[in-house]
């Protein structure tokens, strides 16, 4: 069929717009559905109360605390290691078969299903290193899970810093390490933060790893060595065991809000950090 170019343009425009619209509709449907099912559950008692009768009643405070602890722990471990690896790969190695293998390894690792990380963490940290089900074992395993993402996004960000900025620093007498700390990293910061936020989001939302490594205790965790249940796991168990669908939706809604908040806070932080540079 032969169409005039203008007609083609219309069709293509329509098709692309329809795809975008479809995505948005699905997204808003999910958020709307969960909000309508879960909003009425969220009360102060739900947010700040202890769970009763396995979560059928009461609140979800311990799961909120556990979620915060475990994802902050994962980020705190994975960020320095990930950024350090990225700096090493970008600034201290030349492109070679070895760096390509490392990069391929990181990419492959990023694609490994999280349950395999969970099993690995269970065997290594929980059993072998005798940490038991604990926030520490969970945080370490989640750190392993998000490490490849942080390495690769940081690497992209560092490579995107124009080479001539480094040359300016060198030609003013800057050593390589000074150049990295004062020029490369500050300029790569927004990109690095993007990776960290992605990792944080994945940690908050993760279930398989956490069930394997941190357990599903509903008690308030008092130290890093205590087992705990995160919001995502709580949601899974409530729904899976048919304890309370509406409380599951309430938890899910909080989870979505939490991830939204993380993104907003990170965006504001990024804006503050880069304001002086613009």
């Amino acid at each position, binding site marked *: 069929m032969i169409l005039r170019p203008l007609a083609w343009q219309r069709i293509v425009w329509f098709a692309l717009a329809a795809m975008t619209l479809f995505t948005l509709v699905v997204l808003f449907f999910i958020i709307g559905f969960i909000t309508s099912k879960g909003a009425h559950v969220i009360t102060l008692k739900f947010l700040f109360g202890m769970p009763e009768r396995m979560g059928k009643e009461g609140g979800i405070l311990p799961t909120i605390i556990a979620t915060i602890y475990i994802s902050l722990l994962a980020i705190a471990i994975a960020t320095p290691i990930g950024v350090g690896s990225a700096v090493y790969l970008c600034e201290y190695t030349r492109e070679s078969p070895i760096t390509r293998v490392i990069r391929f390894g990181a990419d492959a690792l990023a694609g490994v299903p999280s349950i395999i990380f969970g099993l690995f963490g269970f065997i290594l940290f929980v059993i072998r290193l005798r940490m038991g089900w604990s926030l520490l074992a969970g945080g370490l395993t989640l750190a392993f899970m998000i490490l490849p993402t942080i390495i690769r996004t940081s690497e992209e960000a560092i490579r995107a810093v*124009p080479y*001539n900025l*480094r*040359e300016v620093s060198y030609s003013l007498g800057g050593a390589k390490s000074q150049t990295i700390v*004062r020029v490369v990293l500050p300029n790569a910061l927004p990109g690095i933060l993007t990776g960290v936020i992605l990792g944080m989001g994945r940690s908050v939302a993760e279930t398989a790893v956490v069930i394997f490594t941190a357990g599903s205790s509903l008690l308030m965790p008092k130290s890093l060595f205590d087992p705990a249940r995160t919001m995502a796991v709580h949601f899974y168990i409530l729904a899976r065991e048919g304890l309370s669908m509406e409380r599951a939706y309430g938890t899910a809604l909080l989870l979505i809000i939490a991830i939204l908040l993380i993104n907003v806070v990170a965006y504001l932080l990024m804006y503050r950090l880069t304001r002086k*540079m613009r």
Partner: protein
Amino acid sequence: MGKRLILRGVNLDIEANTIVSVIGPAHSGKTTLLRVINRLIETQREFMRSGDVLLDDAEVRRLDIDVLRRRVGLIFATPVPLPGTIFDNIAYGPRLQHHHRRQQLADLVEHSLRSAFLWDEVKDRLSTSALRLSGGQQQRLCIARTIAVDPEVIMMDEPTSGLDPISTAQIETAMRELKKQYTWVLVTNNTKQAARVSDKVAFFLSGELIEMGEAAQIFTKPKDPRTDDYVSGRIG
């Protein structure tokens, strides 16, 4: 791997407190010459050189690299402000040497900006982003930033190639005014600029130094016919 000879048989003297222009068509090794002198070429790719580059009788490879690069500054063809404020740009070099006292830094920043004839234009907005300056202002900022680390030689790699005539004139004025303090090496594509500011001119072609002499001599009575062809615009 590709091996290319970029400079060969180059032998030249640069006297203190003069302006020496290096002219020649593209790919004659002018930029490489500057990068060999301050050893910036070592950060880039594998390279080899034989012969000596002397700075006051000391071979540059024997100097500490940070000392060398402070003594011999380099200004790039496109002005490269570091993302950050005007103040931070000028203070970058001194801070690398752990100068952090506020008043001392402020004095140094003012002195450097005055030297580069930029102070009056920016004195009220030192804490705004250097990226908001115009191209000409940015290039003078780069000169001020180099001055702030107290160099002896300032090398410039086609510093005005992207600038308008007024900005170009301001930079040339700065060079002439600062000849008493610094030695200037100016790589330029613009033979008229070389004629305007230089004491001496070196003409490069395909990696060879063809001729070096007093500016007046190079432009009026060149000894080598190839120099004559270039300065009169027949090749290049």
